[in-house]
């Protein structure tokens, strides 16, 4: 089966070592994690990992079952690209010593990015969007001299209504 980008959402207890248990399930099947985000979820005392992988749906379906099986995992789900709304945030530290101000401002504006910090020697630009969006801005800013670049893991929310609390409640998990 063909590989595709898949977002895996895992709802868990907030215990030490659980992230390790979750990632070993991917490692065991030789699956690389493209990005990972851990945060609180909409449910009190329940954490959420959002993991992006590029794999066949068939394999991820099996991995999600294994994740779900872990004692401290409350629930695990996966979604394909067209089933989710997702964003990533990128920060760019740009050397401004040789910057043509008007051109720079135009790039920021066209890309719907914003400047979050201005110092003597650099500015910090923030851009939220898909990987393609933040990559595009990366390519445009690179000629100015990028001192640092960082991109967060994906955060995603499903397009279908999918009330997680209700689903987990119905599974008698919470």
């Amino acid at each position, binding site marked *: 089966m063909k590989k595709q980008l898949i977002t895996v959402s895992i709802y868990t*207890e907030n215990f030490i070592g659980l992230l390790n248990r979750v990632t070993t399930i991917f490692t065991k099947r030789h699956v690389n994690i493209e990005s990972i985000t851990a945060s609180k979820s909409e449910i009190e005392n329940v954490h959420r990992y959002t993991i992006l992988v590029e794999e066949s749906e068939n394999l991820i379906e099996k991995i999600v079952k294994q994740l779900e099986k872990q004692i*401290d995992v409350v629930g695990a789900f996966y979604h394909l690209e067209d089933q989710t709304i997702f964003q990533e945030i990128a920060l760019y530290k740009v050397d401004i010593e040789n910057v043509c101000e008007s051109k720079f401002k135009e790039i920021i504006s066209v890309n719907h990015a914003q400047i979050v910090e201005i110092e003597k020697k650099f500015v910090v630009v923030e851009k939220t969007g898909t990987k393609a969006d933040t990559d595009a801005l990366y390519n445009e800013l690179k000629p100015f001299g990028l001192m640092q670049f960082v991109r967060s893991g994906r955060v995603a929310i499903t397009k279908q209504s999918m009330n997680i609390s209700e689903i987990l409640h119905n599974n008698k998990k919470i």
Partner: protein
Amino acid sequence: METQIVKQNQYLEQPKERISGSEAVVRCLLAEGVDVLYGYPGGAIMPVYDELYKYQDKIHHVLTRHEQGATHAAQGYARISGKVGVAIATSGPGATNLITGIADAQIDSTPMVCITGQVASHLLGTDAFQETDIIGISTPVTKWNCQVTKASEIPEVMAKAFYIAQSGRPGPVLVDITKDAQFEEFDFQYKKCKNIRSYIPIPNTKKSSVEAAANLINNAKKPMIIWGQGVILGGAEEEFKAVIEKAGIPSAWTIMGASALPTAHYLNIGMVGMHGNYAPNVLTNQCDILIAIGMRFDDRVTGDLNRYAKQAKIIHFEIDTAEVDKNVKTDVAVLGDAKESLKELLPLLKTNKHTKWHQKFKDLYAIEFEEVIQKDLNPTKEGLSMGEVLKEINKQTKGEAAIVSDVGQHQMIACRYAEFKNTRSNITSGGLGTMGFALPAAIGAKMAAPDREVVAIIGDGGYQMTIQELGTIFQSKVPVKIVVLNNEFLGMVRQWQQLFFEKRYASTEMTNPDFITIAKGYHIEATRVTKREELADAVSNMIASKDAYFLEVCVEKENNVFPMVPSGASVSEVKLR
């Protein structure tokens, strides 16, 4: 049993009492009904050992000679009794030595709780003496694990550990306790764990799925069952027998399922898989309905998945949702506990005999008997065969013995030819294939079932992997019967070298020590058999012995185990020679 419960109740939900973390560990074990545990002391677990000393009239600690031995003994104990086996070790090397047994228990769904000492919490992460990240190391091979750094956490974590280890699909749990938590005093009270919000041990059985299964089975012309350990773990032996007898379905077993149905039962058609019987392997690819019960379609069972039972509709009775569709796509999945789902299935089934279909199994058995079984059990060659040793043990134990086997050729022979009358009688390392399993596992099995004859059947290779446990047998006076089938080879690997590597016997020939002298060094009575005419008397002496007994049988050096499904082949391509 009743006295056991009274004993347990002494420690359950009593008024709070100020005690140390280490005493709490022992009280938790007593509250869970643990009467024996296996382990090895060391620095970071010494406070708990000090309490075990004080409680020695209530709980029996067995000193093994290696922590791996402690895990396998705990496994043997659990496998024969269905109770949780307990192993205990110190931090660092003590803890890492448990890993093989934990991995074995994980893949073979054995309920086990391992307790490890850990360096004091202020030293965590400093590479202190005998510090190792055992939580990190054991995570992929445990059902659950947890590090405790405060005494007050001990009762809840221990209660969860026992609940998780034995509920649903059983498995190993590791609890790591820092030394300061063992010393710390707190107000102890023990409550059993009854549920965990994020954990559903047994999925609900959908009535519609049972009906769909019954419908397929009732309309089948050529149904076949493969059952696994799930039948034993679920205590579903009677329900299972009732189902197959009513529907008249020929039933084969995986190595882990052996003994759930007596070997002599008319519907028992033998073992499936790489060295399984000819008929069930061949007919897997001819049946119209394949009913899997409490088994997981391991690759040693299925051979090439692309050519596995493609003609059949698949029904899977399974407690672990993650096993459904993992290897073989099912048409009907019946989730839940086998005992309950089979009970629901029974009244929906039509009475059937499938005589013509059953005859096919008998016909193929006759071929296998001629080509393989006859030669194994009644050899005409001069050298002794492993099969004839099993035949003699069957005869003299009347099929009442529990057979504990190691890994390799002797294991396949033991599983193929042991005649079981009782459930929980085949104790072997199935999924992990852990050489060295049998000797310590036999110790645990015999201690859990002192009234049963426990015979360990081991190859000369595996025997030397945990041979030091003879010391445990001697010191703890465990009357196990040890049979080493010595072919002076790592026989299974040699067989593969012969068949697939043009007889290049790379590092498979063993120059062995004098096993008799070694056994006698541990004051264990020992006999060596080299000739056929000596075998019956030697086995008889062994069975008659009230103490531990060691029997070495020097068998033919280069015998092969058949039938065989070569790796990558389809089960129906099973070879008889």
